[in-house]
């Protein structure tokens, strides 16, 4: 069917789950068909939206600039992102930004195999913007909700991506439920800390 390609949704996922992924696939043989990263909770992700703390930036390029950025989520797990000459806006953001800062990142999952055969997952950013703490907190709650929804659908019979996740990963989704609980609890403690700080 000749339909205009629809824009891929940006999935919400905590770093623990994202970094456990490594299997990518296409839905058709077409060269231009989108590549999806299979999330261990049983969903395909061609794009992700992440808000977290940018803790470190570093030019890891050899011949030309190639910027690495580390974004940490409330569990202390790290998203890695890389931007080079083909992502000029994101690369210049990483060059200019002073960590620590809350950042929103929209990007595509990328995988690469290391010399010892391990698959690493990172984000190739489409955009990076500096945001406030309220935006970060909203992302944490939203990502918790989306992750729980995926966990609840995981045992549905018709869930083909959950089936695929069982075959490819065989990782217990309980790990990601714990990541959800941990992330939400960190917000509550933050809130209490702020409340007690303002009363003292």
């Amino acid at each position, binding site marked *: 069917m000749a339909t205009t390609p629809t824009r891929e949704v*940006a999935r919400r996922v905590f770093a623990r789950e994202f970094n456990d992924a490594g299997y990518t696939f296409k839905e058709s043989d077409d060269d231009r068909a989108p590549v999806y990263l299979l999330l261990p909770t049983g969903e395909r992700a061609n794009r992700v939206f992440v808000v977290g703390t940018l803790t470190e930036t570093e030019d890891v390029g050899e011949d030309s600039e190639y910027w690495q950025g580390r974004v940490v989520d409330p569990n202390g797990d790290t998203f890695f992102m890389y931007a080079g000459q083909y992502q000029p806006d994101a690369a210049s953001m990483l060059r200019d930004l002073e960590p620590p800062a809350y950042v929103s990142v*929209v990007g595509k999952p990328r995988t690469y195999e290391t010399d010892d055969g391990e698959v690493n997952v990172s984000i190739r950013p489409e955009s990076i913007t500096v945001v406030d703490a309220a935006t970060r907190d909203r992302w944490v709650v939203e990502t918790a909700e989306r992750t729980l929804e995926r966990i609840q659908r995981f045992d549905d019979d018709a869930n083909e991506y959950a089936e695929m996740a069982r075959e490819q990963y065989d990782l217990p989704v309980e790990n990601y439920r714990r990541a959800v609980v941990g992330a939400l609890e960190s917000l509550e403690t933050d809130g209490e800390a702020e409340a007690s700080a303002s009363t003292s």
Partner: protein
Amino acid sequence: MTDLRTHAEEIHEQFSDQLGIDVDDVHERLETLVEEYKVPVDEARRSVTNTYLDEAGMDRDELRGGGNERKQVADVDTAEEWIDVRAKVVDLWEPRSDAVAQVGLLGDETGTIKFTKWSKSDLPELDEGAVYELRNVVTDEYQGRYSVKLNRTTTITELDEEIEVGDDSVTVEGALVDIQSGSGLIKRCPEDDCTRVLQNGRCSEHGEVEGEFDLRIKGVLDDGEEVTEVIFDQEATENLTGITLEEAQEMAMDALDTTVVADEMRTKVLGRYYRVEGPTFGRYVLADAIEQLSDPADPEAVLIKARSI
């Protein structure tokens, strides 16, 4: 018995323009099939209708819908259904193809729906703002959005009445994940009734023109499940970004480049959460009301759920 008579009358009406047929004749054919051959009524009707279609040398598509359902536009929920609508022409758009005579938006009390009128159907011109009874239009669907198509068998009657077009505005929430090209400080063609956005100073219709500055954002809201494309007009863009048209022009003058405006807008709004309300327009939502979602999120309910699984 009376049931067959009704079917016969409806079939008769469908062919009244093309064939000089007799209701009794139609009735007799139906009766033979139903009573003698024990064919179900629906099948009998289909068979008789096909016989007349053959006689008249017509396609099923050209059939006059004598017995169409009158539908309100918000109730259109299947494709390829023949219906009648009573609606006002809310908007006429520029057809993108010679095959299309007119394209635009029809509205009734329940909302709006896109319509297409084919050139080959040879129908009278519809006027913007006028109310019509449109009989025998066919519904269509594209990516979940419905439209109606006027065809050769459609009858158009202008009505001397007013319709208060319903509010079909929607509310969408999500993170603004993209600002698409063609956003920021743009120039529009100044010709009468032409508001096309210029590309390199050229209008696709009127060629090289002295454009008029405008602000616009074509953005994408994404809630992790669905994406919605949103258009912010000048006022909405000013509200969203805090950059006025004047300021945008100054920024562009200083930089000798209009793209700095969109870049500045990106740093101000990308990656934040918004709630946008407005009418739908094709696949876009036109932002009337915008609110940044900056309240502290409440994790408590989600935490309870997470612990209970």
